[in-house]
């Protein structure tokens, strides 16, 4: 919403300055977004410099100029002037500007196959002189003014732009802003001018609102004005229209726009002579179409509110008028419409047609239904003043009564809500200055809501009105109490926090990537899950919710590789999605590591990353999360995005919960890259189920002994199978099993390998003697041989 101080003065008698007003507006909830010097018709024309005047490739007499208009990039402008040359300072007219000489509106256009962004002007085109030979040649003085308006901007006059929240349609009119300011002790709201216009002629156009289901229109007010002389608007009106950022068109159109911004009252003017017989406000039939004032054709659905005559649709009620009945500069007789449309239905229609207009913007937020006649009166007054003519009586068709809402309001609510004492008289004064009608009823106030405030429903809305006018700075701040009755983090959140820092401490950089990803990459990781498509993705390569953290991590890993960073370890902790219902998501920690093999770096040769590094990182993080080695086992089933031979899963001892995966990623997806995943919900569930109390520490001081064994096993035998068998022989005596060599090759059959391990044996009760140790060793050998088919190597 834009306005100027002098426009505000039409409604508000105030001695406050513009800057005081700006500050006040901010503090009462009408946020000032921008304050800019008023634009006039000539501010578009800016000083520019031809950087290079190139020959037009397809026309000898034209030039294709690179023009500096004070922005970062130069523009291409086609110019036919003989004096266009490198370095010339001249005046540039951008697309959208109107050339004063012929009132032509410039557009981006192709001239002999080359696109021209605007135009370089001659003096005659700007009505500066009759000189039309060549473009303006400015002197060096203008060198510093490139990009600035040639005619300068009027000093001191500003356009104030407010960002009006959707609940305040009344402030989409200057009068509403004035009312808020007057309620804030910033002046007195002026009484509206009484119309003295005589309405003599007959309103002889039949108008009917059809009874349709979901009829959006409930009031249709109108009058006829005959024998007008439509013309260019006078200066004051043009300036206001320009201040709004609109272009003056003709007095009739400018006046309807003016009233819309003045009173938040959209109007529409029809060329009366183009209306066939009568006006019917009705729901559209499917497939009906019309050409709107924006020059586009719209084909309508069923049940959109249209204003129609006997020939068909004239316009979309409350949204946009039609071209067929539009007024023109030579229009003689007009029908002026002032109607009320239902916000929700307007919005639905506009959304379906993807149509936006100032009228629609207002109707969907709520226009004062009682402003129908005031709007007509105001416009009639101006039209008669500027265009002359005779006006008819007003005709108001109304199918619905609007009753002002009454609220039973306990003024103590204000103090209870804001915590600072506000007295009842002040409350009454503020509300009545805002247009509320108040009657005291004992302790309560009976508050009648003005028809222009569709946002007020109940007591709390009144509280807000009062406090925003009083000012939030009046609320006394209450220091928070430093007391904690509930733990800050729950069990799961603690693990999230710990997992995050645990993985980071293993050398991984934490990333945060989108929760969505490219379906094509995601498909490689989704396994059995369905793709979860976003209906309206931001771009086609971010079109599904991620089923895994890998797609994005790999994407960014590769980006970093391209930036020249070979050694990388990245991780993310966050949601992956298992379905599209709320809650169908799990928390995953995923790390990814890539080593750049530097052929010539001998210092690093012994430090190559392999699957056991990634396993180390994972197992260490699990340990820090208090999932110890004895709590899980390693299995070989992993999802298809891992290398089938070089990857493993970490599962709970009972095999029911997958805690994580690790391994080399599948070479078809990315080469020489390792990764791991931890499934945090599973991990926490496992911990909850197996809640262990830490036993007090006991250790044995008796002599411990190591025995080494080497077993010959089948190639596919897993080390874990051996250690598990050995461990189970005697959990008390066998303290530790360490694998120290795996050997395949010479002296061993080709389908076998040798696993060498060191078993630490110690009793908690005595020093073991030679025969104890021999016994246990024998038992180890015989059990392993029996259970795994291994043979002791001798």
């Amino acid at each position, binding site marked *: 919403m834009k306005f100027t101080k002098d426009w505000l003065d039409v409604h508000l008698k105030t001695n406050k300055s513009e800057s005081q007003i700006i500050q006040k507006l*901010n*503090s*009462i*909830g009408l*946020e000032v977004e921008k304050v800019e010097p008023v634009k006039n018709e000539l501010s578009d024309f800016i000083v520019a410099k031809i950087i290079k005047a190139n020959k037009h490739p397809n026309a000898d007499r034209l030039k294709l100029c690179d023009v500096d208009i004070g922005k970062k990039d130069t523009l291409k402008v086609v110019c036919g002037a003989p004096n266009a040359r490198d370095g010339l300072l001249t005046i540039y007219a951008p697309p959208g500007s109107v050339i004063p000489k012929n009132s032509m509106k410039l557009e981006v256009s192709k001239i002999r196959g080359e696109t021209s962004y605007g135009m370089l002007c001659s003096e005659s085109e700007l009505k500066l002189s009759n000189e039309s030979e060549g473009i303006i040649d400015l002197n060096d003085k203008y060198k510093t003014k490139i990009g600035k308006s040639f005619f300068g901007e009027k000093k001191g006059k500003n356009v104030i732009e407010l960002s009006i*929240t*959707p609940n305040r349609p009344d402030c989409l009119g200057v009068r509403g802003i004035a009312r808020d300011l007057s309620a804030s002790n910033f002046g007195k709201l002026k009484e509206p001018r009484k119309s003295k216009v005589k309405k003599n002629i007959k309103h002889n156009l039949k108008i009917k609102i059809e009874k349709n289901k979901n009829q959006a229109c409930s009031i249709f007010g109108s009058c006829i004005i005959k024998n007008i002389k439509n013309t260019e608007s006078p200066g004051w009106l043009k300036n206001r229209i320009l201040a709004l950022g609109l272009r003056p068109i003709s007095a009739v159109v400018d006046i309807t726009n003016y009233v819309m911004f003045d009173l938040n009252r959209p109007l529409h003017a029809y060329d009366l002579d183009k209306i066939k017989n009568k006006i019917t406000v009705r729901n559209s039939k499917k497939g009906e179409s019309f050409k709107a004032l924006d020059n586009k054709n719209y084909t309508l659905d069923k049940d959109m509110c249209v204003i129609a005559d006997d020939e068909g649709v004239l316009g979309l009620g409350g949204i946009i008028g039609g071209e067929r009945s539009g007024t023109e500069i030579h229009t003689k007789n007009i029908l002026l419409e002032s109607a009320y449309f239902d916000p*929700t239905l307007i*919005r*639905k229609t506009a959304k379906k047609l993807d149509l936006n207009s100032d009228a629609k913007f207002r109707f969907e*937020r709520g226009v004062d239904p009682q402003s129908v006649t005031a709007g007509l009166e105001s416009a009639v007054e101006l039209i008669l003043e500027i265009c002359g003519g005779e006006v008819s009586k007003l005709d108001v068709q109304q199918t619905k009564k609007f009753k002002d809402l009454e609220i039973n309001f306990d003024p103590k609510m204000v103090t*209870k*809500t*804001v*915590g*600072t004492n506000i007295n009842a008289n002040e409350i009454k004064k503020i509300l009545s200055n805002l247009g509320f009608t108040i009657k005291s009823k004992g302790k309560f106030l009976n508050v009648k809501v003005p028809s222009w405030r569709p946002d007020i429903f109940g007591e*709390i809305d009144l509280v*807000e009105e009062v406090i925003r006018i009083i000012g*939030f*700075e009046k*609320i*006394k*701040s209450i*220091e*928070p*109490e430093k*007391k904690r009755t*509930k733990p*800050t*983090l729950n069990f799961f*959140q603690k693990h999230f926090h710990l997992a995050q*820092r645990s993985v*980071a*401490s*293993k*050398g*991984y*950089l*934490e990333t*945060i*990537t*989108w*929760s969505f990803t490219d379906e094509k990459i995601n498909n490689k990781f989704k396994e059995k899950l369905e793709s*979860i498509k*976003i209906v*309206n*993705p*931001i*771009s086609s390569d971010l079109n599904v919710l991620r089923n895994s953290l890998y797609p994005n991590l790999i994407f*960014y890993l590769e*980006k970093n590789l391209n930036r020249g*960073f070979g050694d990388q*370890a*990245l991780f993310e902790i966050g*949601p992956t*999605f298992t379905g599209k219902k*709320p809650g169908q998501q799990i928390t995953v920690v995923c790390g990814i590591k890539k080593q750049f093999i530097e052929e010539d770096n001998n*210092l*690093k040769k012994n*430090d190559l990353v392999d699957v056991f590094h990634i396993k180390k990182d994972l197992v260490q993080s699990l340990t820090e999360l208090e999932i110890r080695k004895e709590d899980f086992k390693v299995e070989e089933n992993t999802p298809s995005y891992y290398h089938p031979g070089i990857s493993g899963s970490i599962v709970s001892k009972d095999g029911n919960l997958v805690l994580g995966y690790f391994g080399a990623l599948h070479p078809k997806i990315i080469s020489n890259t390792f990764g791991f995943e931890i499934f945090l919900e599973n991990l926490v569930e496992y911990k909850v189920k197996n809640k262990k109390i830490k036993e007090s520490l006991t250790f044995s001081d008796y002599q411990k002994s190591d025995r080494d064994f080497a077993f010959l096993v089948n190639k596919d035998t897993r080390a874990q199978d051996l250690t598990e068998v050995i461990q189970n022989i005697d959990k008390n005596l066998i303290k530790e099993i360490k694998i120290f060599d795996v050997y395949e090759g010479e002296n061993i059959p080709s389908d076998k390998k040798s696993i060498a391990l060191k078993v630490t044996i110690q009793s908690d009760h005595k020093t073991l003697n030679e025969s104890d140790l021999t016994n246990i060793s024998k038992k180890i050998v015989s059990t392993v041989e029996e259970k795994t088919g291994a043979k002791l190597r001798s």
Partner: protein
Amino acid sequence: MSDFEKKILEFKNRLNSTQDSKEIEAIRIDIFSKNGFINSQFKKLGSLSENEKKTFASNINKAKQELLEIFRSKATEVLDKDLNEKIKKEKIDVTLPEKEFKIGKIHPVSQVIDEISCIFSEIGFSVEEGPDVENDYNNFTALNTPEDHPAKDMHDTFYLDENMKTLLRTHTSPVQVRTMLKGKPPFKIIAPGRTYRSDSDQTHTPMFHQLEGLHIDKNINMGHLKGCLNYFIKEFFEVDKIKMRFRPSHFPFTEPSAEVDIGYKIENNKIIIGEGDKWLEILGCGMVHPNVLKNCKVDPKIYQGFAFGIGIDRLAMLKYGINDLRSFFECDYRWLNYYGFDPLDVPTNYRGLSK
């Protein structure tokens, strides 16, 4: 000079003249070993008379002591010399690179979430979370944003179905709804998390982070809201005083609603929070709308309270001087290393939030 004395002298000379550790060892064996000179002399004692025995034994002992002393000092001298020579040869270039130690980093957003949790923990808030995918009811309807209302335009929503019933939450406010529906008042929670809007330009990313706050009890008013936010901002920016301004605004789910600006100034291209006469909008807040409480089965006649929503990424940018929001999600190796935090640098109440 007796043979014995000659032999002693010979040994002394041998010891004094050598510089070789192998020779030292050979001498040791010759003199002190089981079959060495000293022991062989002692063996002679048996054949001597009592008197001679006494004298000779004391001579042997004396000689042994003497030799031992010389031997020890010589051995030390030679070993030292050898070690010194060895050390001399062991000189390396210590400017060669150390073995690589890689510690990772915590993303600034995660760090800031921890800082925030730490601050609110102190005044009794606990952390709640909700799903990223929400239904239309929790994201809009329950929060007093009706179907087909222009207020919805402020949220460019990502939808997961054509009927626009399932969506990616546009704010963390649905966590309010979930928290209230599953529990009983009072409520005192913060809810940090990912939020989504279909918006992407210089200052917007399709995903960002928000922090929701909610405090509902029997007598919680706007004074508490002001006090709470003032405390938070001061603690967060680790400054003694803060300039704050509450501007009335509109959110469907709070009434009265406010936007909060903090004062700042730019000095040497750096933003200084809490001073100066420029204003920066940092959060939205207000008293929870009675309709929201009703929708969440909380009786607005008995309970009232406040809610607020803060952009976490924005806070991180301000506190740690990060200029570009988009860079948070670009995973640039250099950026992560530079702006990331040491994983051991956990914000705590007693040590302070930041290093």
